[in-house]
Structures are given as C-alpha cells and as structure tokens.
C-alpha cells in the first residue's frame, strides 16, 4: 500500500528537517469524532497538501495545530521539539500562521488594524500602526501582496481579504503557513497568483500546509500530500509518485465511478426560459448580470463554475428566495420575480421544486423531526390538512414513512429530529421531499456535497429518473465530474454571466476550466 511505503520513508528522515510532527491527535465534537488518532509529518521548506472529502476532519486538524481547538489527545512537535499548543497565542509564538476557510477579519477595521490586532507593539496604537505600515510595504514588495493599508475590509474583494490574512501571518513572522481551502473563493487567475506567492514563500524556506479539494492544485504545487477520510489519516505520499486516480481512491475508500449510465435525453417543450435575469445582493452589488438560458422537458442543464460566480443567486432567484429583475417563464407563464408572488410558496405551486445547496441552513430545520421536515415548504398542501385550521399530522407521518422507505433513509424513524441523521441521510430526505412532488422543474444545488458514494449513486439515479419522466432539471455543482456525467447540456458561469454552453459529449475539463476562468476560446477574452 502506498501509505505504508510512505510512512516508512518519512520516519527515516532526520528529525531536524521536520517542521511539524503530529502524533496521535484525536478530537470529538460531542458525538462526532472529527479526528481519530492522526499522525503526520511535514518537512521543512515544503508545500504539504491535505485532501479529503467534506467533513473528513481537515479543518479540525489544522485548527488544533493552530491552537483554535484543543485536541482530546495527542502531541505536537514543532521543529522536533514537543510544543503544547493550548491556544493560538502559543501557535503564533511557535511560528505558525493560519488562513482559515472562513476569514477571521474584523469587517469594519482597516487592513492595518487587522494586521496589528493581537501583535501590537506596546499599549498604544500609534507606534504599532506606524511599524506595521512600513512592514506591510516591505512585504508587499517582496511577495506581490499589495493591499491598501487604510482600506476597510468590508470594501475589499475576497481575493484581497485573503491577502490580508496572509499578510497577518507573515507580519507575525510565521515560518509555517496553513491555508484552508484558499482557492475555493478565488478565480483561476487569482489562484495562480496565490500559487506564485506560495512558491515564493517556499523558496524563502517557509513551510506551507495547503488544504484543498482540487486534485489539480495538489498535483501542481505540492511536494507531499496527505489524504484524510472520516477523521483518519489514510496515507501520506510524495506528489511526484502518485496520480489523481490514486488520490481519489484514497479519499473515497474505493474506486470512483467515473460515469453514470444514462439513456440519451429526449428533450421536449421548453419548460424554463430565462431572459436577461439580474440580481443584486443586499449591498447593491450585481451578482447576476443578465442570464439567458432555457431548460427543456426531459433534459438536465448543468451549471458549472467556481463557487461564488452567481450560481447560488441563480438558484435562489428561481426558487423564490431572492428577488431579481428580468424575465423568467415557466411553461410559458411569466414568473413574478420581485413582487408579491416571488416567494418559495408560489414557486412550488407553479411546479418548481428546489433542493438547496446549503441543506443544513436552508433545506431543513435541524430541530424539527423528519416528518415535520417533509412538510417543510409543503405545509400548505391540501393533503396535509385535516380541515381549514388544523394540519393532519398523522397523514404527514404516514407520507414521511413512505418516502423514507423509498429513499432508504436510515434510520427509518420519522419522529427523529433531523439533526440526528447523518449528512447523507439528511440529503436523501430533502431529495425525497422535492422529487416525490413530481415537479415540472427541479432546481438542485450541490446534490452530493458531503454525501457518501452509495448515496451519491442513488441520488444521481433519482435525478435521472425524474429527467426520464419528462421533467426539466437545472443542476448546479462545483464538481466537474458530476456536471459532466449527469448533464445533457452544460452552461458555465463566470462573474454573474454565462460564458457559454457546451455539449458534455464534445467538451473536456480543459475547455470548461477555461470558461470557468472567464476565458472564452472562441470569442477570446470575456
């Protein structure tokens, strides 16, 4: 096995060349064991990748290293010396810096204030600010990390905010830099820029730990890569000696299915017709800048793109959660996008079902029971009413039992609170609720995020079955594999626009990747 091979070699390396060594780290959050007896070694001056599915425990492990969480058990060695890290202060002192998945910046402070926070010189601010201003200028020159030191964080783009986080770490003279999914929010160009910076840092002798889901990035920039699955470290390998296929297998625990078996689509009449759809967020920033698309009966339109390019907003405005401008027709009937009928209720009545991207916060109420969640959004349906006033809870429970059985939701107890089901089973419950309604149009976002392989196959089959029953499906996913294998047509979104449509049979990942980066092969730059 690759894992054993690697471990043998690493143990032989001289201990002084190790920047970090973790031994037997375990951590539980209540009933969830996020890390189980994890050991890992990171060489000084290397870029070390960590990959793993959602919820595998990557962030937890790194947060323990940074002193944000305390491990239940285990030891941390920095530079070969046993270093207890009970809090972030100790981590900083040990030369560790971390850029979190969700940035830890004070929104209405300036860049400078954010940088000095916790690393001030003396009790007064003035000297600290002056010193930091100079230091930032130096760092900017050295690493191409320009930001306006007096800008407020809330006025900066995500990419710039990330620079501030890196600057924070460098200002504290971090030798070891941890980045948790830094590219999830970046455009490919920004990501390339980041990688240049990281390589520069490596040349300076700094050690970098990079968490990511993207195998391409791992292959491109890391020296070593560790794979986590379900709270455990499954392997550590040299990047040069592995392949994406091997990594995928290590991540998921078995061979990954590459394609879904599906019959060719038989598209019928146009179900959804979107013209010049525009959406602004609450800050007035335009998130959708004129979307045109159609989805026909019996077809799956897949929307690909880097997260944050407007896919969420598209689903939300079609699902009635957000308001927008432009024209959307369902079966030839104009939808109300900003008036009295632009809500989830009206959409459901019109025949749109919606599996949201964020199932825990949008799709269900964690404290509600399974049967209450099956009514969620459909609580006004006549079949769930006993009379004009009361709901028919018994009918609802019966219906839920049926759905749970059909979708193999485990445990099949409809009185259990949603939070007591695992992520995959929660998702099955939601998919059951929405698909069983037999909608004309299914909106489905990240259908298999954090869901195990078995459930992925099942959910994919259900989506295809709906398509084959002559319904229209709009699928949003950041997983290109999923998009490629399910869609009958692919639209790529970038910066609130659709860069182009592709036929999955004739396109490839490189082509889609360019579109996702905002580069159009045919027309040139967007």
């Amino acid at each position, binding site marked *: 096995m690759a894992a054993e091979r690697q471990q043998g070699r690493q143990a032989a390396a001289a201990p002084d060349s190790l920047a970090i060594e973790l031994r037997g780290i375990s951590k539980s*959050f*209540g009933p969830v064991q996020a890390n189980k007896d994890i050991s890992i070694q990171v060489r000084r001056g290397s870029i070390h990748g960590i990959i793993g599915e959602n919820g595998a425990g990557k962030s937890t492990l790194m947060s323990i290293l*940074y*002193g*944000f*969480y305390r491990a239940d058990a285990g030891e941390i060695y920095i530079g070969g010396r046993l270093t207890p890290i009970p*809090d*972030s*202060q*100790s*981590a*900083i*002192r040990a030369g560790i810096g*971390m850029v*979190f998945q969700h940035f*830890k*910046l*004070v*929104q*209405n*402070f300036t860049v400078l*204030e*954010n940088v*000095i*926070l*916790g*690393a*001030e010189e*003396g*009790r*007064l*601010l*003035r000297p*600290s600010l002056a010193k930091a201003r100079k230091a930032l200028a130096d760092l900017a020159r050295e690493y191409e990390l320009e930001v306006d030191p007096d800008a407020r964080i809330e006025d900066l783009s995500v990419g710039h905010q990330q620079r501030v986080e890196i600057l*924070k770490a460098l200002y504290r003279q971090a030798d070891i830099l941890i980045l948790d999914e830094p590219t999830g929010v970046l455009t490919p160009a920004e990501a390339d820029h980041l990688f240049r910076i990281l390589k520069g840092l490596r040349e300076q002798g700094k050690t970098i730990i990079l968490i990511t889901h993207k195998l391409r990035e791992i292959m491109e920039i890391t020296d070593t890569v560790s794979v986590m699955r379900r709270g455990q470290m499954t392997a550590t390998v040299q990047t040069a000696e592995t392949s994406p296929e091997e990594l995928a297998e290590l991540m998921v625990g078995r061979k990954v299915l590459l394609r879904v078996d599906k019959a060719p689509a038989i598209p019928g009449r146009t179900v959804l017709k979107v013209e010049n759809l525009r959406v602004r967020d609450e800050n007035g920033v335009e998130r959708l800048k004129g979307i045109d698309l159609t989805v026909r009966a019996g077809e799956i339109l897949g929307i690909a793109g880097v997260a944050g390019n407007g896919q969420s907003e598209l689903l939300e405005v079609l699902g009635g959660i957000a308001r927008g401008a432009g024209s959307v027709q369902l079966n030839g009937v104009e939808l109300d996008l900003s008036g009295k009928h632009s809500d989830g209720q009206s959409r459901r009545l019109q025949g749109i079902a919606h599996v949201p991207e964020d199932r825990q916060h949008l799709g269900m109420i964690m404290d509600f029971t399974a049967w209450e969640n099956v009514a969620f959004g459909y609580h006004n349906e006549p079949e769930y009413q006993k009379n004009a006033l009361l709901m028919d809870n018994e009918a609802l429970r019966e219906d839920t039992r049926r759905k749970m059985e059909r979708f193999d939701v485990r445990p099949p107890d409809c009185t259990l609170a949603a939070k007591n089901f695992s992520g995959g089973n929660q998702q099955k419950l939601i998919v059951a609720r929405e698909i069983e309604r037999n909608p004309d149009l299914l909106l489905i976002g990240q259908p298999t995020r954090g869901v195990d392989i078995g459930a992925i196959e099942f959910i994919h089959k259900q989506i295809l079955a709906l398509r084959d029953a002559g319904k229209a499906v709009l699928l949003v996913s950041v997983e290109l594999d999923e998009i490629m294998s399910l869609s009958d047509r692919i639209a790529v979104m970038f910066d609130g626009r659709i860069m182009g449509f592709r036929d999955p049979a004739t396109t490839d990942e490189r082509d889609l990747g360019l579109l996702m980066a905002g580069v159009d092969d045919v027309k040139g730059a967007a």
Partner: protein
Amino acid sequence: MMDLTTVLQILDSTIRLGTPLLLACLAGLFSERAGIFDIGLEGKMLAAAFLSAAAAFVTGDVWLGVAAGIFAALLMSAIHGLASITFRGNQLISGVAINFLASGLTVLLGQYWFALGGRTPSLTGDARFAPITLWGAEALREVPVIGPIYYELISGHTALVYVAVAMVPLSAWLLYRTRFGLRLRAVGENPAAVDTAGVSVVGIRFAAVAICGVLTGLAGAYLATGLSAGFVKEMTAGRGYIALAALIFAKWRPWYALGATMLFGFLEAISNRYQNIDLGGIVIPVQFMQALPYILTVVILAGFVGKATPPRAGGEPYVKER
C-alpha cells in the same frame, strides 16, 4: 422667552440629571462594544446606589461609599459575565434577571439593615458629596455672561460630575488609541478574529464587563450620594433604560454619548420644572416630555433618522465548538 438665569438653571439641572445617564451610558458602551448586550444597567446602578448609600452612612465617608457602590455593581457584572461569557447564556435574559435581583435585594437588605422600609437613613456631612467650587468661580461671578455661566453651570457640581465628564475623552482615548481598545472593539465585531490573533476573547469580554461594572457603580453612587442624600427604593427609576436608549442614540460612540445623555438630561430637567409646556397654543403634556427619550430612540431604531448599527457580534455568545 426665558431669561439667562432660568436657562442656566435648567442647564445646570441638565448636567446634574445627565451625569448618571452619562456614566451608565458609557458603561453600556464598553460592554456592548465588546459584544455583551447589557439591559441590566438599571439593576447594576440600583445595587450600586444602595450599597454606596449604606456604606457611606455606616462609615461616614462618601468615598468608601463609592467604593462599595462599585463593588456592588461589579458583583452584578460578575453574574452577567458568568452567565453570558462563561456559560454562553442569553445576555438579554441575564440582564432582566439582574434588574430583578437588584430590585429585590436592595429592599430586602435595606430593610434588614436599617428597618426603614428599604431606604437608607439620610446622609449628612462627609457621607455625601458636597459641591465643588472651581478655582476662580467666586471672582468671576460678577463678570457678565461668562461669570454666571462659569459660576452656575460649570462650577459648583459634585466631584462625580467632573469624573463623569472626564470619562468621555478617557473612554474615547481608551477605545480608539490603545491596544486594549482595539481588541475590545474587535471582540464586539468578530470574536473569532481576536481569538485566532492569539488574544483571549473571554479575558477581553470580562474586562469590558468589569469596566461596565465600575462605571455603573459610579452612576449608582452618584445617584445616592451626589444627586440625593441616601437610597430610596427603586431610586434609579428607569434611568438604566434611558441610558440604554441614549447608547443607541449615540450609536455606541463616547462623544455622541455625552450629547445623547445631556439631551435626555435636558428633557428630564424640563419636565421636572414645567408640568406642561405651552408652546403658543399647543400644550405639551409633561407625560410626553417624559416619554420623549423613548420615542426618539424608537425613531432612531426605526432607521428613519440616522440608522444605528450595533456591534456585529453583539448579543451572541462566542461559541467555538457546539
């Protein structure tokens, strides 16, 4: 319409009545800027007023009274901190509980110690604050206009009034010019940022709650030993809530707090002095004047005039692990 003496009289009264509001408002400012909502200002003030009067009476020394008042308010702050920081409870509920606790305990203990139905005996001599005549006030008194203003309005208040006014620049300096202030403001906006920067969120929040205790302690002590001479049941009479209103009115800023509390002090001074105000035909009832601070605050809250944004992490306990 009004002559200078009347105006000065009302402004003088404004300063006296605005002072407890100012102290309490700054107290709330420190707490809420650190992300701890505090609707228990009223209770802390009340507890402080009681214990300061009791201690001042027993020892005969007003400064010992002030110390005791601060101690009482700190005790209440400790409960609030324990509930809302350590045990991550609901800060609003904790505040409500503190208000009731103070309201009940002051009378219970007061009755037990002094058997005067919850009030303390009247304070005399050194057991209460005497007005301070500022340097040169007597000499300047006869100078027209500035003389009376200096003598009546600026000079002749008790020590805590000057302490309260001095607290405004001090608070502004502390919040905006020091390391502690930076961290405190950050903790109210995004505690995770402070935590990951290697600073203890719990430590900063407790410090803020303690400052809040000291300031409400001063406010309560001023009520019992400066503004009046002894403790009377429920003597705060809603001032804690007015201070809270002033805090919103001031948008959580120290200098604005001075303005807001003095405005509300002015309204109280007016309604003390005039039962009804006749504005050329329209009679404004005193009850309207009394409700005006609350009405103004609702208007501000509604965001029709100068929207007030509270600290972002305010009211939320800082929870790392579920």
